[in-house]
């Protein structure tokens, strides 16, 4: 199964934007884990932005970056939003309210609590009426999102925006899901090679015989990869950042592996 990557977006500790991140992931610049600023997410109208959760801002911010790089119209793109845990910050507020004697739930909080909040805010901000899927697959949410997006690109012959994001939940939920850092990544995947194509990806799903996950060489990046489901994308992003062909193994559930051949389109 072959797709092309036309645009990338990235936000994480020490990884602010694809261009600076590309140099780090290619090994040209050292990695320093520093907390990223609150993303502008300027695609959101000011009133929507004010109401939006951190997850929503992170997700739409990287989506916007990838779209700009791919020079494509977001209205025309189907979307896949992959996230293990969803709107934990909102759920923390809702569950806190529901544990009180007066259970006065805010209607805004309630509609923000859905797992497809980021997908919804994105489609509203871009007036996009294409298919939009939000999914979870625990630690393998990025892998599931990649399969869903690639299957869509190849069976529907349409360009897809894939966004993966996960943020550490607030206390006390953090103890239930102690995610490392916050991380969001976006890829614009297309069925046909064009002048904008950065790399060609060949994906196959295989039975996993042993632990074959491609790891990050830098220990801090490896800790991020292991500690945040969306950051499981890092080895693939690292292969995209480098300018030579590579093969990436992405563990998928306990028993499968997504094998990705990465071939640069530009020399």
């Amino acid at each position: 199964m072959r797709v092309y990557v036309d645009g990338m977006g990235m936000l994480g500790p020490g990884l602010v934007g694809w261009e600076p991140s590309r140099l780090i992931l290619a090994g040209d610049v050292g990695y320093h884990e520093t907390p990223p600023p609150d993303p502008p997410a300027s695609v959101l109208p000011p009133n929507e932005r004010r109401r939006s959760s951190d997850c929503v801002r992170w997700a739409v911010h990287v989506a916007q970056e990838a779209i700009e790089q791919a020079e494509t119209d977001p209205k025309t793109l189907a979307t896949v939003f992959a996230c293990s845990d969803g709107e934990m910050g909102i759920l923390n507020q809702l569950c806190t309210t529901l544990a009180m004697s007066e259970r006065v739930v805010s209607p805004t909080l309630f509609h923000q609590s859905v797992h497809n909040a980021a997908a919804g805010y994105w489609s509203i901000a871009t007036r996009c009426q294409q298919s939009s899927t939000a999914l979870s697959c625990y630690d393998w949410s990025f892998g599931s999102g990649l399969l869903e997006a690639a299957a869509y690109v190849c069976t529907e012959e349409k360009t897809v925006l894939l966004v993966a994001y996960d943020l550490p939940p607030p206390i006390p939920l953090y103890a239930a899901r102690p995610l490392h850092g916050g991380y969001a990544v976006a890829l614009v995947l297309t069925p046909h090679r064009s002048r904008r194509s950065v790399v060609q990806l060949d994906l196959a799903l295989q039975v996993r015989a042993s632990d074959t996950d491609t790891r990050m060489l830098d220990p801090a990046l490896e800790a991020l990869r292991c500690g945040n489901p969306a950051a499981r994308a890092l080895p693939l992003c690292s292969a995209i950042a480098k300018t030579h062909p590579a093969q990436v193994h992405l563990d998928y559930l306990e028993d499968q592996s997504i094998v990705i051949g990465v071939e640069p389109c530009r020399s």
Partner: protein
Amino acid sequence: MAPLILSRYTVVSALGKGLDETYRALRDRRSGLRPCDFEDVAIKTYIGRVEGLEDVPVGGPPSKGLAQFDCRNNRLALLGLQQDGFASAALEARERYGAHRVAVILGSSTSGILETEHAYRHRDPATGALPASYLTGHRYTHNMFSVAHFVRTYLGLRGPAMVISTACSSSAKAFATAARFIEAGFCDAAVVGGVDSLCQTILYGFASLELLACGPCRPCDEERDGLTLGESAGFALLEKSGRAGPPGAVALLGYGESSDGYHMSHPHPEGAGAIGAMQGALRRSGLQPGDIDYINLHGTATRANDGIEDKAVTSVFGPSTPCSSTKGWTGHTLGAAGITEAVIAALCLTRSFVPGTLNTTRVDSSLRSHVLLESQEQPVRRVLSNIFGFGGNNCSVILGLF
């Protein structure tokens, strides 16, 4: 698209367990809705609650590791797997194709959030910490992947898996993703479906939006005053027709997905997304509007949904295609509504009837579509089912006799 066969399917809702109980309730016009008696919820509304979930934990031998999944949502999933020989059919598929070649693609909107609601009532008074048992179980109960993880573990499947969570459209979209995965070669068959169970979040959340009916919901009624929440679990085993297609089987003929791109909780005023989903499903199935015998409406019974869905339906189908909403029987089961209404569509096809619209006495005169109040016995060859959700997320599926 090449039709995919639903070689086995089942549903559990407030109407009962499995196909026969569901069919009998539809035929006898017996609603599953009752005054809200869920936990200590103090809202004047009705609910579609599944009996007995409080008393039957998910268990089994420790070696199977199923007990850690115990929560209301997975109890409901288990009850679903046990109906109509569904689990046996899935195990046969596992033998036939290999465990790695059978996917699990399910929909849910709130997963096991009820466990988190309970945990927040038992926080440590000194530290605010949540109970230790909750913390270790969170992955298996509340995490959005929980129900697919549980079903995959219960059935011993090792293929691709995920939970689609696009609010109410979740389990309708599971059909679309599974069809793509089969076409892409990621799997040969898929357990599709969805599970959503009652919780305080949705009851108080929909109440805050002032969308809950006081009594049982009355879809398309002039006096409709909102929706009624329910819970359900449904599953279908989706396979290519070549290996599983006896004549007369129920098949997925098409699906269409779209977004409104308009508002998080209000539908697009002209129904643009709904129209896109219905047209997409027709296009993919190669059918014309006149080929559809019956439309199972999303029909939540809110003022906005039923009015806008009516505009969308008539703009695609004109005013004569028979349609109805079955939410007066089941309530709105959110992320499981797609599979619940797909199974009802399958019953229409195999038992030759179309349900009316329960609890509705007078159809809103501003609606132009052909809303059935009474059930009709008639041959049905193709059904379109609409599901629209928060975030403006829409999906239509077409099922037909193969």
